[in-house]
């Protein structure tokens, strides 16, 4: 009896959560406006309650999946009794309804964390921040309940078995990718709430920036990992060996990442120098708006791809409405209140401030170019002006040169000083790095590959130009210490975070440059006994066989690979699977990964006469792409762990802290 009622309990919990979010969104904000501490005090308990009840709802849906309750429409459409348990667990978010529920769950979790770790904040700021998060939560829970209820039943005609999860999604990459990505998307809601709270309160000081920075960094780190995982998944699961397609859905995740990167840097200036205040607020608003836009693009069905589950227009309209309200209201608040928080701080053109300004402008231009390429075809379509698509050449033509310019300034930024940097100092510190970057960058491709490619050389110069000045800076910073170890210990975690983050960008640039120019792809026709040579590796097909697993049938090729004249060989076994429940074919790629190169074999199609079409690829440095992403994310997390944020969290008394903040302001 209890088991039968699980979906209803989940549904009920979701309704309660929405009501709590409504209270959280209205009472504290009204309390601030009317100066009623009691109303403001509703914020924290409601945030906790909202999380609790969304978590109950989520647990109920998961239980329905685990118990194979096919009377629930969502389970019947996306699961199957033969599915292994871990895919049942991830199938919960492998569909529209479940994924927006996950979105809401993570939003509630971030809201709860904001409530939990804001003890040292003034009461009215907490009330405003949580109130705004409550409003966002309310919007999304209403979206789930009104248009995408995951607990809908299929009664009385309960199917005997489910339709199965899309085979492409039956994979470790999918278990990890959406939660990480959503953590990033949703995480930007916290800094968005902080920004609106600052606008409403008319107060924005260094302390505010110090509160907002860790949240931004964390959200950004999650988003980075999410994007890297998505790219990795596409690489091995789609069977083409591509790692970035400039697909609108990918762009949807890149947009908040780009503006979030700009936001992180602009927050640094706001904290250290008290400058760029309105700009920081605007970026915070835009970043979260772009997260919502991404959700809209992916969830509304205006795009068709593996991500677009829904084709119900009411859903798209609902998210578009949420997006419109959020962007419109927050920009209105910005327009009305921003003049209050701004105040000017001078700096010269050669200073870290100015370089970070350039960084921000470049990142915003990149965001806009990607946004235009993504939205322009949709706009034309919506206005009935024709169906077009914007291909990768557009994005590459704009994104690659902009990245190179960005890299140029990334080399200068970390060694420049705030406010003013003498030209002589920059030249003295950087000439060796510049020379090293050019010489090494131009010669290294000669050693690695047979032909010299200007694009690779340019990429390497850019990457080295990012890394070498950082090394020089490390050297300068530790030179005067008693020992190297002591010198390194003195450097702050925030500094290491920045270094790692930038190193990650350099590593990714190397990966992109090399894999884009030195990859070798060969589509071949092979029968057992045939051999083919690709990039110095000899691939010999030994035989073909069939294999049966719980939920699919597979044709399997056995291929032995030998490098050059070496005696040792290894085997690769690509498969072509046919999933039984959906009758959907899928290539399972055979990969031989390595830090310097991947070998990649995918089965194409049965050509009928005992031979198969195979796609064989040699992908040098492809791992560097994702390694760079992980380094960036790790840098972001490391910066959050910096002492100055922890000290703030344990500081004793609000009065003392307020005094400190004022003191710091005065000094800065």
């Amino acid at each position, binding site marked *: 009896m209890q088991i039968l009622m699980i979906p209803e309990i989940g549904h009920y919990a979701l309704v309660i959560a929405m009501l709590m979010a409504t209270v959280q969104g209205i009472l504290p904000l009204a309390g601030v406006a009317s100066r009623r501490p009691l109303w403001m005090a509703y914020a924290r308990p409601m945030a906790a309650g909202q999380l609790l009840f969304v978590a109950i709802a989520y647990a109920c849906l998961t239980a329905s999946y685990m118990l194979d309750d096919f009377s629930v429409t969502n389970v019947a459409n996306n699961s199957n009794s033969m599915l292994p348990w871990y895919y049942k667990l991830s199938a919960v978010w492998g569909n529209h309804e479940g994924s927006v529920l996950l979105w809401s769950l993570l939003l509630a979790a971030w809201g709860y964390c904001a409530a939990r770790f804001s003890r040292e904040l003034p009461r009215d700021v907490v009330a405003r921040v949580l109130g705004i998060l409550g409003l966002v939560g309310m919007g999304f829970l209403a979206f789930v309940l009104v248009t995408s209820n995951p607990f809908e039943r299929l009664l009385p005609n309960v199917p005997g078995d489910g339709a199965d999860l899309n085979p492409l999604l039956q994979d470790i990459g999918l278990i990890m990718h959406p939660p990480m990505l959503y953590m990033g998307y949703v995480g930007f809601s916290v800094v968005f709430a902080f920004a609106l709270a600052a606008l409403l309160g008319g107060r924005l000081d260094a302390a505010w920036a110090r509160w907002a920075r860790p949240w931004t960094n964390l959200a950004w780190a999650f988003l980075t990992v999410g994007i890297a995982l998505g790219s990795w998944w596409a690489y091995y699961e789609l069977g083409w060996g591509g790692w970035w397609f400039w697909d609108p859905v990918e762009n949807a995740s890149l947009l908040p990442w780009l503006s979030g990167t700009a936001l992180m840097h602009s927050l640094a200036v706001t904290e250290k120098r008290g400058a760029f205040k309105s700009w920081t607020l605007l970026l915070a608003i835009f970043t979260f708006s772009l997260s919502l836009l991404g959700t809209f693009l992916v969830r509304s069905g205006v795009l*068709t791809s593996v991500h677009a589950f829904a084709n119900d227009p009411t859903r798209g309209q609902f998210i578009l409405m949420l997006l419109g309200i959020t962007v419109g209201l927050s920009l209105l608040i910005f327009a009305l209140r921003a003049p209050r928080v701004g105040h000017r701080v001078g700096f010269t053109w050669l200073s870290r401030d100015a370089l970070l300004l350039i960084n921000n402008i470049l990142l915003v231009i990149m965001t*806009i170019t990607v946004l235009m390429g993504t939205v322009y075809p949709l706009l034309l379509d919506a206005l009935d002006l024709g169906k077009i698509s914007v291909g990768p050449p557009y994005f590459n*033509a704009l994104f690659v040169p902009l990245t190179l310019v960005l890299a140029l300034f990334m080399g200068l930024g970390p060694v420049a000083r705030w406010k003013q940097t003498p030209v002589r100092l920059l030249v003295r510190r950087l000439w060796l790095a510049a020379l090293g970057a050019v010489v090494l960058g131009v010669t290294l491709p000669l050693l690695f590959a047979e032909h010299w490619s200007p694009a690779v050389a340019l990429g390497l110069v850019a990457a080295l130009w990012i890394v070498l000045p950082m090394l020089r800076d490390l050297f300068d910073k530790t030179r005067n210490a008693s020992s190297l170890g002591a010198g390194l210990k003195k450097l702050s975690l925030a500094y290491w975070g920045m270094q790692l983050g930038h190193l990650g960008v350099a590593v990714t640039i190397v990966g992109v440059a090399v894999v884009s120019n030195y990859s070798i792809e060969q589509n071949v026709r092979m029968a057992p006994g045939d051999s083919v040579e690709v990039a110095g590796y000899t691939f010999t097909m030994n035989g073909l066989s069939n294999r049966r697993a719980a939920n699919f049938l597979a044709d399997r090729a056995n291929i032995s690979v030998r490098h050059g004249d070496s005696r040792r060989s290894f085997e690769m076994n690509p498969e072509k699977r046919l999933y039984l429940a959906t009758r959907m074919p899928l290539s399972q790629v055979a990969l031989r990964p390595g830090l310097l190169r991947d070998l990649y074999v995918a089965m194409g199609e049965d050509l009928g006469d005992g031979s198969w079409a195979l796609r064989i690829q040699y992908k040098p440095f492809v791992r560097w792409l994702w390694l760079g992403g992980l380094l960036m994310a790790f840098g972001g997390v490391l910066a959050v762990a910096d002492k100055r944020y922890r000290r703030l969290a344990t500081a004793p008394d609000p009065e003392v802290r307020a005094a400190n903040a004022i003191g710091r302001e005065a000094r800065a």
Partner: protein
Amino acid sequence: MRPKRKQKLYLSLGLIALAAVAVGLTLYALRSNINLFFSPVQIAAGDAPIERQIRAGGMVKEGTVARDPESLDVAFVVTDYVDDLEVRYSGILPDLFREGQGVVVVGKLQSEGWLRADQVLARHDENYMPPEVAQALEDAGYTPEDYQDKAAEVGERMDARQGASQ
């Protein structure tokens, strides 16, 4: 002018110049990289440009997929049930490429009237119909039910054939 004002002026001017360059470049890049979609009817009517990258699509006509026995060259016919378009491609077709299914091809139209495809796209879902193709079919007077039934029918026949050969 006071130095601060001057700085602001330069900043604004710089920003405007940068924005102008960015917009100009973007529009230029967009112009040369837009792929327009054409249905077989439009191509037969001569609406599509020759030797320029376009997208075309429709259903893969049953019984037209012909593979070269020596290489990976393949030819097939894409139809919107009014007109046909011959497509030639060299390489591996996507997993979900099947007779009777909707596809989108990207490539250049040759003056002889066939299309040399660089890319053949079939999506990750059996029941999925590329929206451009659906629109083209609708323009040709077919409702979604028509071609879905047709696709299901062809699919069943193909499955039966596969079952018989195994």
